[in-house]
């Protein structure tokens, strides 16, 4: 199978590689770039463990060919913390409010919440629940995830107000 050239920005770094055209984005990230934060849970686009941020949208990277991400700006869980290594508010909030247990869905869940709070900076609990409905968790029953996202939203909004 002839390879295609793929070029994209992943977590702020430009990457250029040859890949089989049928390679899924999740395998490209995990196998070629050793970015193993996004996980594979279901292969059928249901569980959201593979969620990454692509050009400002949450996508399930198990349901996308690498070629479709050509030229894109991709952010994974590894890329959402600050340049100085400080954790994102969401990462702290998930820990503080026990929003994770086995941790397998967590990178996808936080990456989704990261985009959700940009789409809707002040969501209600119902909007949070709807906003993360594409990400399944078997451990937490979502209650503390919702709480963590709500608290993170409040903190981000307070920081925003203070800055203004």
């Amino acid at each position: 199978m002839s390879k295609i050239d793929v070029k994209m920005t992943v977590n702020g770094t430009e990457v250029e590689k040859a890949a089989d055209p049928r390679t899924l984005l999740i395998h490209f990230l995990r196998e070629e770039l050793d970015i193993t934060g996004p996980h594979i849970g279901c292969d059928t686009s249901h569980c959201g463990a593979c969620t990454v941020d692509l050009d400002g949208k949450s996508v399930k990277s198990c349901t996308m060919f690498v070629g479709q991400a050509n030229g894109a700006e991709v952010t994974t869980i590894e890329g959402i913390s600050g340049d100085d290594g400080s954790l994102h508010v969401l990462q702290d909030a998930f820990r503080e409010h026990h929003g994770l247990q086995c941790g397998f869905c967590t990178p996808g869940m936080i990456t989704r919440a990261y985009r959700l709070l940009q789409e809707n900076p002040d969501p209600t609990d119902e909007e949070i629940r709807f906003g993360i409905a594409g990400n399944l968790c078997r451990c937490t029953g979502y209650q503390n995830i919702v709480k963590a996202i709500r608290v993170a939203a409040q903190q981000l909004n307070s920081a925003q107000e203070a800055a203004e």
Partner: protein
Amino acid sequence: MNDQATPSAAERAEKLQGLGCSRKRVEDARFTQGKGNYIDDMKLPGMLFGDFVRSSYGHARITSINKDAALALPGVIAVLTAEDLKPLNLHYMPTLAGDVQAVLADEKVLFQNQEIAFVIAEDRYIAADAVELVEVDYEELPALVDAFKAMDADAPVLREDLEGKTEGAHGPRNHHNHIFYWEEGDKEGTEKAIAEADVVAEELITYPRCHPSPIETCGCVASMDKVSGKLTIWGTFQAPHAVRTVASLITNIAEHNIRIVSPDIGGGFGNKVGVYPGYICAAVASIVTGVPVKWIEDKIENLTATAFARDYHMTGRIAATKDGKITALDCHVIADHGAFDACADPTKFPAGFFSICTGSYDIPVAHCGVDGVYTNKAPGGVAYRCSFRVTEAAYMIERMIDVLARKLDVDPAELRSKNLIRKEQFPYTSALGWEYDSGDYQTAMDKALAAVDYKALRAEQAANRQAFTNGETRSLMGVGVAFFTEIVGAGPVKNCDILGLGMFDSCEIRIHPTGSAVARLGTISQGQGHATTFAQILATEIGLPAEDITVEEGDTDTAPYGLGTYGSRSTPVAGAAAAMAGRKIRAKAQMIAAYLLEVHDNDLEWDIDRFQVKGNPEQFKTMKELAFAAYNQAVPGIEPGLEAVSYYDPPNMTYPYGAYICVIDVDVDTGVVDVRRFYALDDCGTRINPMIIEGQVHGGLTEALAIAMGQEISYDKLGNVKGGSLMDYYLPTAVETPVWETDHTEVPSPHHPIGAKGVGESPNVGGVPAFSNAVNDAFAHLGLTHTQMPHDHWRVWKTAQSLGITG
């Protein structure tokens, strides 16, 4: 002289972050940054990838397997079939239940998606291509999917390998598809009590086949080091030591030459207890090729081939006096075990602890019997977030109590209260022989009823029913009550073993000279937060801050032998081992302190983080000081160093319990069930970390919601599995999941060193009957006594339709 500015006792205790505090989890730093280390993250030089060719049929004879096209594909290294495994005697493997299971199908396939061939290729894409190129020809045979027909005279013979075997691992087999009959209790006395009773309620209660379905599927990386002769398998193992012993027994590789490592596990819920063909094939492939081989199943394979749960068809009969005192319980179960009996139960309990089915009630006489049968379905029979067959038992009794309440025309909560085991009866021996350790059931029940204002709910329901009759609403309200008792912490070595391995657990502690420590245990966390909570237990026992104690699990080369994590056994068994090992550390530290303070051992007392002289607390040595002294002082009669190991054989099981109340509204025209409120009161004895307990309860309740409201792995008449992907198999999202209200009482276990009982599985055990009782309750006034789970929209609508109330 010690530091004069000694902090207060409260400050010192807080610094330890010990028992009872909501310590934040140490695991979370890596998980929130995507730095977890799960099996599929692992990459070794030269690693190959394995994938299975699986059966298209539920029951068929394999007439030929042609590997040629697959082997011709560039990048394919080998294709293994049963014929390749036979010379190694590895085409069958022993199951945890005393049966054998085909690793690769031997002439016949017995369930759809059964493993037939194992393709080994350079990457997962090539392996998947090669799987498609392996040609298998079949001669289809009639499939047996109805467990009730398994023992018909003309039922097809499934297990030809067992032909002529009239004795199984658990006694006589009286039909070619029979596995065992197991019973407990006084059959004659129970029949007599039922015959003489004022009222008898009878019902067939089915707990459908479902699947634990953690988000991470099962997988492994096997690596045979040809130079050292050592086989290492990293994988999704809930019981790494048991896997090592089994691997040694079936491969004849000496046990010291096998290392089993469980990395981070992305949820287990029972799915990762078993030994699966993928592990064996990956190991054989690595031995054959000399390089590491990875096998990771996909979600469809996970749902259809590894570890189903439940599939119990329970006929209950419950007898009572006319004023509602229960006089007897009988239950007969047809247990559908699938094609191989691979149930994960302690050896002497082929139906697990199903005999806990008298539940939380003082029932004078009882009997239960279970017939296990083979069908053309996947093997498994794991305890999906519960102790062995306890959810089935709790579901049966909690439904039967409601069925009896309808028959007696009394309130189900009142009937429960009338029959609960009373506080003064503990320790209580049930009619089926279990010794319940402790409890105060009525207090828990009363607290729950008061919390939801139960009387007001029933009044509201009466008004709702009137409004429904008047045509003012199309919604019916249901209230489900459940009072469950779990039996967890398996278990005492005298009666609990798996493949002959006693079900003790272990903890080894090493205190470092500077006053920090490492503790290693035979268990393995899959999200329970062991690294956090075991350190809390130890912090309180040994007086060193939890943050200075590293907890390690899951590597058989370093951890002491233990039986792993499932059945809510980690806290009751390994947690106890941790406390006992901590006490050994403290005992030695006390002798060192006595030497340093120049007093007798008995003149010292323990105070949070130190030994102090009785009556003179100014004279003390902190644990940190004693740790250093253990390494730099020559104490007469005492060896240097400060280490301890404890193997804890629990004297009894623990019996967590709880009272759950669920309020729902059913739209009778669509069958949609809206969970308005769910209140859960749990008593898990001493509470180690309230934050983690609450999280466990949230998660368990959500799994209970999934099971009660939608999960089912069913088969059509041809043996095709339905519901084999997340397209059909229900995992609730945040939208369907309600807000959970949690509460607790705290009656410690009298026999556990710190009084803890375990909690992770209680919400699943109690949650399922609470949901199901609520759905049944919504229609109870129309004459419904029982409708089968799962209560998905279609079934609920069908129920409404059968009652003649749909629009």
